[in-house]
């Protein structure tokens, strides 16, 4: 039931729309079939699965809007859901930011979803393989494998129709040495789970764990760092690159409360804020990180450049803010791509005289929204580099750094890899600011 075909979804939405007595009505279906397995201490701790489909109905009378949802689809429930949305709308205050519903739109067709997904048995096998590899080396694994399929469909009284199916699977594993003195991490995600190699990812984490024992303390300060993709982007927490792109809203900047606010008023679109090698864009058609074809209102996504040669090329405009400023609105993309070169992380290390390799950054929080200053810590594999080679593991450190400063201090950009449904290259950055040592392993 959870994954409806385009025809099934649109037929259901059409029926729901026919119950509407509102001035405008938008209906949507969102469904997913997902499953996960979690393990720790070399044993499975929890496993779960869920199948859900939810219908949302937004009814509007003039500038008043109400939303109701339900997850049962018999006729009585559907009618009640529409009725509830209309009752809520009648009681709602008028929205001063009302925008009429969109009419018919043309959508791109992102690469299709994977045909075969993991099952409870293949998830259990992946966990068993990961655990087995670690147990054999007297290491301890903790991991999480989660994924499945989803669909999203919209239809409204102005004639808009949209539908998209997608699949994704996420895997992450932390491997620790038995004495707790070494820890390593690996993470990856894929549209097609057959592209994930659980054993080799576990091996990478295991190697980092084994080589990070006996870490030495070095003095905090400014260092050249090689930030691996997991130190730049995270699917489930704030990250240096994620924090930057999610803060590119035009409204906040125009209102004077963003790092993109211009002194004296307005925003900094068109200004060069970063090194000229920095390019960040989104493209729903990218085969490696296919994106959503439309946003929650049915606005089509398209290829958009956000930072081009270090210049802020575009900012996010909601439909309301776009109209107010007489510009085109921007659908928020589901993935970002930072372009890079061809060098692997190993090659970036080779060209480094003195520096630090950072596997992962953790517990990142904003310290100052004015400068996008963030703090956080290294974790699960931090190493000192000298004369083009890793010399020894070092103790973790806290950083206080802004991604704006970071992207001005670019030494080299490596080959992008998929992470959190984005393409992120490893970056070599000079003068990255560490402010204190941590005893955490």
């Amino acid at each position, binding site marked *: 039931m959870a994954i409806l075909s385009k025809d099934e979804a649109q037929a259901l939405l059409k029926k729901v729309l026919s119950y509407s007595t509102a001035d405008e009505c938008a209906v949507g279906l*969102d469904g997913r079939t997902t499953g996960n397995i979690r393990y*720790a201490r070399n044993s499975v701790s929890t496993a779960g699965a869920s199948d859900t489909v939810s219908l949302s109905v937004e009814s509007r009378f003039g500038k008043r809007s109400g939303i*109701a949802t339900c997850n049962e689809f018999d006729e009585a429930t559907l009618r009640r859901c529409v009725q509830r949305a209309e009752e809520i709308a009648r009681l709602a205050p008028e929205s001063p930011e009302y925008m009429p519903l969109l009419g018919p739109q043309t959508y791109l067709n992102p690469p299709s979803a994977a045909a075969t997904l993991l099952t409870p048995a293949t998830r259990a096998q992946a966990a*068993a393989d990961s*655990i087995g590899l670690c147990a054999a080396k007297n290491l301890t694994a903790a991991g999480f494998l989660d994924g499945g399929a989803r669909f999203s469909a919209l239809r409204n009284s102005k004639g808009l129709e949209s539908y998209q199916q997608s699949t994704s699977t996420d895997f992450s594993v932390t491997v*620790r040495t038995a004495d707790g003195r070494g820890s390593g991490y690996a993470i990856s995600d894929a549209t097609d789970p057959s592209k994930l190699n659980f054993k080799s990812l576990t091996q990478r984490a295991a190697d980092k764990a084994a080589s990070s024992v006996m870490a030495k303390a070095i003095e905090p300060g400014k260092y050249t760092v090689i930030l691996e993709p997991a130190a730049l982007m995270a*699917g489930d927490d704030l990250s240096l690159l994620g924090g930057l792109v999610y803060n590119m809203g035009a409204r906040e900047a125009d209102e004077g*409360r963003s790092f993109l606010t211009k002194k004296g008023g307005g925003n900094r679109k068109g200004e060069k804020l970063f090194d000229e090698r920095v390019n960040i864009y989104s493209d729903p058609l990218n085969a490696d990180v296919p994106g959503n074809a439309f946003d929650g209102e049915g606005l089509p996504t398209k290829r958009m450049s956000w930072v081009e040669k270090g210049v802020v090329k575009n900012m996010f405009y909601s439909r309301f803010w776009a109209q107010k400023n007489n510009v085109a609105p921007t659908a928020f993309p589901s993935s970002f791509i930072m372009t890079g070169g061809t060098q692997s992380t190993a090659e970036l290390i080779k060209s480094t005289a003195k520096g630090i390799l950072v596997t992962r950054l953790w517990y990142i*929080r904003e310290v100052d929204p004015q400068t996008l200053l963030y703090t956080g810590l290294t974790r699960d594999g931090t190493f000192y580099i000298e004369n083009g080679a890793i010399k020894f593991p070092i103790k973790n450190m806290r950083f206080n750094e802004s991604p704006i400063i970071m992207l001005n201090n670019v030494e080299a950009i490596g080959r992008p890899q998929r992470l959190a449904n984005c393409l992120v290259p490893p970056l070599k950055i000079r003068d990255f600011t560490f402010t204190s040592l941590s*005893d955490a392993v």
Partner: protein
Amino acid sequence: MNRRDFVGLAGLGAGALLLPNFPSLGADLVDPARLLEPGLDIAQKKRLADVALNAAKSAGASYADVRIQRTLNQGIFTREKQVQNIGSTETMGVGIRVIANGTWGFAATNQLTDAGIAKAAQQAVAIAKANSKVQKEPVQLAPQRGYGDVSWKTPIQQNALEVPIKQKVDLLLNANAVALDNGASFVNSALFQINEQKYFASTDGSYIDQDIHRIYPNFGVTVVDRASGKFRSRQSLSQPMGLGYEYLTPKAADKIAGPAGSDVIGYKNSYDILEDAASAAKQTKQKLTCKSVTPGKYDLVLDPGHLGLTIHESVGHPLELDRVLGYEANYAGTSFATLEWKAKNLPYGSKQVNIVADKLQPGSLGAVGYDDEGVKTKEWDLIKAGKLVDYEKIRDQAHIVGQKESDGCCYSQSWQDVQFQRMPNVSLRPGTAKMSVDDLVKGVDKGIYIAGNGSFSIDQQRYNFQFGGQVFYAIEKGKITEMLEDVAYQANTQEFWGACAGSCDASDYRLFGAFNDGKGQPSQSSAVSHGSATTRFNGVNVINTARKIG
């Protein structure tokens, strides 16, 4: 909410996207009047619970528990003079947890029929049996007697969900108006209200009916100086509480002034949102032009509305036994306070540090009668005179530390998520000698007074942390002298608590609340409170967080 959930919500229409941090995923948006309708009556719940327990036992479970839960949420969101969104949600279903072949299994359903519930129970047993093949050690549950038919209710005076929406909207818009009148450029305000109607039954013979309420009013004020391009913000000094709407009727007795010269007012069991909105706007204007801190060592005087988060991160989390044992290694992390570390009897803090865990304090977010595995809640010591004496644990962990009973720390955010070990309320006991906040400041030669919680970050084993705040005041020779900006302090957990030089007395004691504490994969949210009186820490490293960007 993670990024993927955010993207997933796109299908729920534009309105849903306006509900920041609002736990609506998986819940239905409903008419507010629906929140006042009673759920299933208790006899129906008991009958359905027995269906689940019997089906689980028949399928081979040696233990089973069932939670029939209805969760009601309402969020009201405004900015300046307008309402942005009002959302009322309801979700109801059944979660069944079993032990079969010595292994946990869990399944949930929103089909509240005998057949639907029995099927979920059988599924839970099937999952347990499948996972038992990779299980190393069988689950050992601390014994728990059945309580029969019992009930518990958050001792609220007025159910916030029964207050007309217009009254709540007017209060938020009035607070916004007060902030704007006092110089705010922008103000966002919100009111969250949650009611968990939880029915728990287990094969131990407990049938527990609980009605749990939480409320959280809050706002953020921003002042912009267009000419310089500079902006500063201040968040409300309210706390999320385990209270009803009475929290929003201010009482003079609940207001506690900060040190003389600070212009800070803290709140106990009731909150004056209009007073705080005025104060926030004035303080934010001051923040634009006040002195930037000189980095160095300072004695810190920390308000309970700030210190609560430091307690949460540096004591509450490292003493969760599942982290200590490694169950959270891949995400939330482990802990420095390992069993070996505890065995060495190392000091956690100075002799002034007495930290207690509980699930009882009236008004706290963690207060319930029974936890989500049917254990009656209690209070117990974690740190006594600076020494670690105990952890936070649940039934399947007690034997690992040689204990015979659970602490009652088991919680699940919803019927559809499996319950696991979560943090109880963790609080610093106030000083026993009479001491006001002015008395405390009097003894400080060079220090900073901090109120409100700001940016916070701590490593995955809970050694190294950095905290900001909402407002900062310089203390010189025993007196508050001026406001400061760009302040954050960095410390190591043991050193920090080792530098604790004492707290004000119980008259200054207040609760801080963490409304959305995340843990687990998939991540679950829980809410806990942390009590303390204003407390002094000597010689803490303060950094300056100002930067220049091009």
